[in-house]
């Protein structure tokens, strides 16, 4: 197998794709190249590499076996791949789903194109439109004004760990054949001198038909947190480019670990509430709608495999991992920030005391009126 580094046609240093500028840049000579310029001048260099096979495990491979005791040696070997860094020649060990990475010694961005060959070849890639600095700023903005955030959580050292990654996604096109039943109530209210009257007219609401959905994204990597990836949406798929491995330079990238059939149930669970609400949306004339039942049959005939840009930051606080993700295209950032329990208590008492003073004064004023 081969590992590729894209080199600067000007100085020969490595190139990386800069989402902010939407160009390939060389950090050494500050050159910038568009896709067309790269195609004209050529930018790739190859270096052959090898796979770690059972009985041929290098030192780093052995280390992996020691750390992951519940995996047998054979299984571990089967999941490991080793490459030579095209820049410094050091050995790069990756798992079998990583398709773009960095050399740990020289930080050289390295792409492993064979990982995206055959059925793993994405149909498209949505390139990054934001850079690391924007991701760091977005993270700082997310933390802004959070009074319960532990001290030092936004320190620069932590922010440096923000990594751009192309996450494999399946885009599902599907149709939903629905049969919706519900009971609707229309209330008419009037009164006479002795009684209030409420007349309730009951209706059986029946809706049936089909709904066509397009490009429902579901992350296809088992490493990714599903709720986090769902919260990152929407992506603008109109900006997707035909897959070009050069977009991966300077980022991590993974191939999918879930086949479409593995995600089918999750996909239907995601859109079922929407089908039910959409089916019942014409029930607005009713004062209340209840006893809802919506039987839905889903059919998906088309799935597209593509890579979507995501900035990730994993942070630890009090032995718990906190994962943040930013949509590399739109800049939308999601995540759960840690809470300092000491600060929570402090703020509770502070707000309590302030409220007590204000409401206490009001109480005296109200009480004083009667004196």
């Amino acid at each position, binding site marked *: 197998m081969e590992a590729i580094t894209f080199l600067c046609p000007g100085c020969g240093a490595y190139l990386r794709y800069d989402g902010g500028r939407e160009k390939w840049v060389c950090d050494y000579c500050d050159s910038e190249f568009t896709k067309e310029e790269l195609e004209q001048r050529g930018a790739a260099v190859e270096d052959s590499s090898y796979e770690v096979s059972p009985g041929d495990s290098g030192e780093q491979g052995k280390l992996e076996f020691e750390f992951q005791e519940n995996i047998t040696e054979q299984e571990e070997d089967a999941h490991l791949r080793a490459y030579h860094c095209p820049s410094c020649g050091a050995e790069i060990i990756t798992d079998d789903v990583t398709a773009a990475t960095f050399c740990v010694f020289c930080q050289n961005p390295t792409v492993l194109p064979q990982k995206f060959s055959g059925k793993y070849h994405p149909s498209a890639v949505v390139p990054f439109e934001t850079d690391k600095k924007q991701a760091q700023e977005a993270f700082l903005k997310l933390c802004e004004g959070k009074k*319960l955030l532990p001290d030092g959580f936004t320190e620069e050292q932590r922010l440096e760990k923000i990594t751009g990654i192309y996450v494999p996604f399946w885009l599902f096109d599907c149709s939903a054949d629905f049969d919706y039943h519900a009971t609707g109530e229309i209330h008419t209210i009037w009164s006479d001198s002795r009684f209030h009257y409420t007349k309730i*007219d*009951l209706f059986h609401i029946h809706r049936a038909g089909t709904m066509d*959905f397009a490009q429902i994204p579901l992350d296809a990597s088992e490493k990714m947190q599903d709720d986090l990836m*769902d919260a990152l949406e929407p992506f603008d798929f109109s900006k997707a480019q035909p897959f070009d491995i050069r977009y991966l330079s300077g980022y991590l990238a993974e191939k999918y670990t879930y086949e479409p059939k593995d995600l089918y149930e999750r996909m239907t669970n*995601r859109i079922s509430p*929407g089908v039910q609400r959409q089916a019942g949306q014409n029930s607005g004339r009713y004062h209340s709608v209840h006893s809802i039942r919506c039987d839905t049959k889903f059919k998906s005939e088309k799935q597209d495999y593509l890579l979507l840009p995501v900035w990730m930051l994993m942070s630890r606080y009090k032995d718990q991992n906190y994962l943040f993700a930013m949509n590399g295209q739109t800049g939308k950032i*999601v995540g759960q920030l840690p809470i300092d329990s000491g600060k929570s208590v402090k703020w509770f008492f502070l707000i309590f005391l302030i*409220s007590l003073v204000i409401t206490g004064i009001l109480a005296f004023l109200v*009480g004083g009126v009667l004196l």
Partner: protein
Amino acid sequence: MRKIRCFCLTLCFLLLFSVSAFGRTEGYVFDEAGLYTQEEAAELSARAQKIGQDWGLDVLFLTTEDTGGLSAREYAAQFYIDGAFGLGQDQSGIVFIIDMGGRDAQMVTAGEAIDIFTDYYIDGIWNQVKPELSAGNYYGAMSLFLDNVDYYCGQYQQYLENPEGFVSEYQMSKSNHTLLLCLGVAFVLSIVIAGVSVISMKRGHNNVRPYTDGRAYLKENGLHMRIDRDSFVSTHTIRTEIPENHNHHSGGSSWGGGSSTFSHGGRSFGGGGGKF
């Protein structure tokens, strides 16, 4: 039957008055149960007479072993009517009856005394005299009662002279009660505000929420309805009675709130008391 009962009772009261003539009555003290010494009865009577003259109402002490099937307050009311007690046009007066048979003591008010001794003040007096009655110190209890009658009549007189400017004990108590209530509400409200604020701050730490329930991916013109039908099933009507607007007569004033009253012998009486 009713006439016979009234006749018997009147006879009893006439008997009581006649018995009083044999030394158990001392002015305003009618001590059928023999709870006071001669000196105590004389002392109480003298004070009752003076208070009565000062404030224009009869102050009477009545004790009995047997109320003849009536409640203590009805017995006192009947006694008041039969004795034609009360001063002024509205025959104002107050009777303190101790029924030793039922271990019951009641203050029964008539005329203007109903307005003076509202439930609030009656309760206050009762709370003072009850321990003395329970301890068997009947004279002490009645002395306390007289002190209170004298004091509240004086207060009431001041109130009548300046209804707007006078701050009664009842008003003070009500205001203090309101103030305490407001402070309690302020305390609870502060806890709720602080709790809600911190929970809200904590919620702000997590913005991981699904972007859509799926409808964002519905194609334009992607909804094809085969059936869009609303069928009438049934109708029913619920009827609820409009609650009547009961205007409870509180009898309340800035002096002392309302008085609970009862009727006996065609007249209205107030007061209160309890077992001791």
